[in-house]
């Protein structure tokens, strides 16, 4: 028990066969008091949510709601070993995300025909895909852009590694081949199992991230449109997003999507609101660039899960529409600058500087923190955080209104992960080595999501290039949502084996090498 970074054997909190940890960390008086205060706030958020009768009703109706019992533990996993500014950064992000998801759930259940059945509210709801940039909603402040998949499949896996096994099995029971990506598979399973809230004036589905999303959406829209009577627009963003000759098509898709929303909701596009959101998008971009620039130095500050999870949420799901995220962007930057000036470090030692590439294992998002704590590997950036750095037009002029369609199209095409897994080998393969140089990294940790064919298809070329450039390349296999295929320990062992046999190193914290967390949330 100590306030000094790395002074506690963090593996001691795990107990064989247990879902939860034996206790929380003692981080010294100041940091423990801070963490405790944030725990109280989270409890308050959760309490305010569950006290509403309709939310309790939803809790008893939807199987995936059970995973929200694990919310505080998700925060504990992502704050493990953190002190000072890093702890505060993590809480700033996580607490906001928790609050945002609680509001999302509340609204979903308010309009859900099975739960709140608020028809007037439902008429203002546009359902959006989980794997979709919400750029098309930037000019509709009077409408609610709600995602059913985010709280029913995406967030539960962050909370509980086993959460989606049930739904994947349902999809396979209905004949889906098990080699497909578990994410759309689970989403399809939720739909098949009648476990998706039913509400909304219309829905926008998108072909991002990949073939799997595109096809899984077909399963969902079959029910949504043909049975529930909610019209669906499929937003088809081009795959070859770096090419000039697809941009007009992409912009027209955005125009068509906006026209569809206007038709089915009666709302009118608001340019003032759009450009306000655009300003926030640009702020987020600038902040992220600053963090990444800091990460290129000897004292990276916003990295690991602090960078990855927040970027995914802010860039994709929020897309400038929620002012609270702009406040947190500024707060994170301030904390980062503060820590940078004092040359602070997240772990007692950084032995390696790594670029994390590929699609992360969703059931083990805090793996990035484990890398730092166990082996002193600083995950400077990851593929999902290397998104668009282009600033979009933010001043309302006639030219910018036309440009706005291209900007929204650009954002949609450059959705998280998709901007790398699609668009040609340059964005996936070639640019990785540019980042290795820019960030002065000596290691690449490559997530091999075995069902991600777009990534797996470049396996050999990654190996060949790593050899050419003399970069340590560590493959970490996983199956995204399914820990039955490769468990968290299986993921850790791939690093452990590499570090011991190839790098001939001993861990910073040996208690973290092998953890009995098979049954854990």
């Amino acid at each position, binding site marked *: 028990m100590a306030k000094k970074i790395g002074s506690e054997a963090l593996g001691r909190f795990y107990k064989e066969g247990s879902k939860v940890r034996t206790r929380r960390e003692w981080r010294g008086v100041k940091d423990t008091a801070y963490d405790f205060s944030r725990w109280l706030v989270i409890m308050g958020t959760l309490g305010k949510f569950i006290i509403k009768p309709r939310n309790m009703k939803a809790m008893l109706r939807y199987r995936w709601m059970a995973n929200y019992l694990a919310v*505080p533990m998700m925060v504990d996993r992502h704050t493990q070993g953190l002190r000072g500014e890093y702890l505060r950064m993590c809480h700033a992000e996580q607490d906001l995300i928790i609050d945002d998801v609680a509001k999302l759930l509340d609204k979903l259940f308010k309009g859900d025909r099975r739960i709140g059945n608020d028809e007037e509210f439902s008429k203002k709801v546009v359902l959006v895909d989980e794997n979709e940039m919400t750029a098309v909603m930037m000019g509709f402040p009077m409408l609610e852009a709600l995602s059913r998949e985010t709280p029913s499949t995406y967030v539960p896996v962050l909370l509980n590694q086993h959460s989606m096994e049930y739904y994947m099995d349902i999809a396979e029971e209905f004949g889906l081949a098990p080699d497909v990506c578990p994410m759309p598979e689970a989403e399809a399973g939720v739909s098949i199992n009648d476990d998706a809230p039913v509400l909304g004036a219309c829905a926008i589905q998108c072909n991002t991230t990949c073939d799997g999303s595109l096809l899984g959406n077909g399963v969902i829209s079959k029910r949504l449109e043909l049975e529930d009577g909610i019209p669906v627009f499929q937003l088809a963003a081009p795959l070859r997003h770096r090419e000039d000759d697809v941009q007009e098509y992409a912009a027209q898709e955005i125009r068509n999507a906006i026209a569809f929303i206007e038709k089915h909701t009666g709302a009118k596009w608001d340019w003032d609101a759009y450009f306000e959101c655009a300003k926030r998008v640009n702020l987020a971009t600038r902040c992220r660039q600053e963090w990444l620039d800091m990460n290129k130095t000897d004292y990276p500050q916003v990295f690991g899960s602090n960078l990855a999870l927040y970027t995914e949420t802010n860039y994709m799901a929020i897309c400038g529409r929620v002012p609270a995220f702009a406040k947190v962007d500024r707060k994170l930057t301030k904390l980062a600058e503060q820590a940078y000036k004092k040359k602070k470090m997240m772990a007692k030692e950084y032995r390696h500087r790594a670029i994390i590439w590929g699609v992360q294992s969703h059931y083990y998002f805090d793996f990035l923190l484990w890398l730092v704590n166990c082996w002193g590997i600083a995950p400077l950036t990851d593929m999902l955080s290397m998104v668009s750095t282009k600033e979009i037009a933010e001043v309302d002029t006639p030219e910018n209104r036309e440009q706005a369609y291209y900007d929204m199209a650009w954002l949609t095409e450059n959705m998280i992960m998709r901007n790398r897994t699609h668009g040609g080998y340059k964005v996936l393969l070639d640019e990785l080595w540019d980042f290795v140089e820019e960030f002065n990294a000596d290691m690449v940790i490559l997530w091999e999501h075995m069902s991600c064919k777009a990534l797996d298809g470049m396996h050999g070329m990654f190996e060949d290039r790593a050899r050419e450039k003399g970069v340590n390349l560590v493959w970490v296999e996983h199956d995204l949502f399914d820990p039955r295929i490769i468990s968290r320990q299986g993921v850790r062992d791939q690093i452990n084996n590499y570090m011991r046999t190839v790098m001939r190193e001993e861990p910073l914290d040996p208690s973290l090498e092998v953890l009995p967390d098979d049954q854990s949330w």
Partner: protein
Amino acid sequence: MKKKCNCCKLPWWSKLLIATTGIFGLLFTVYFFNLDMKLTAMMEPWLLKWYDHVDRDKHL
């Protein structure tokens, strides 16, 4: 005349202080020993059994 108990003789602010300290202590104990998660972990299997009995229109 009934005698006041010792705690009733205390001024209101010290009663508040004691109550606050007690609540703080309790909450901190729950927080530090992870009792909240231990409780919800016990609740989960019951909840999952409940879901098995909910009527659903399961189809493609």
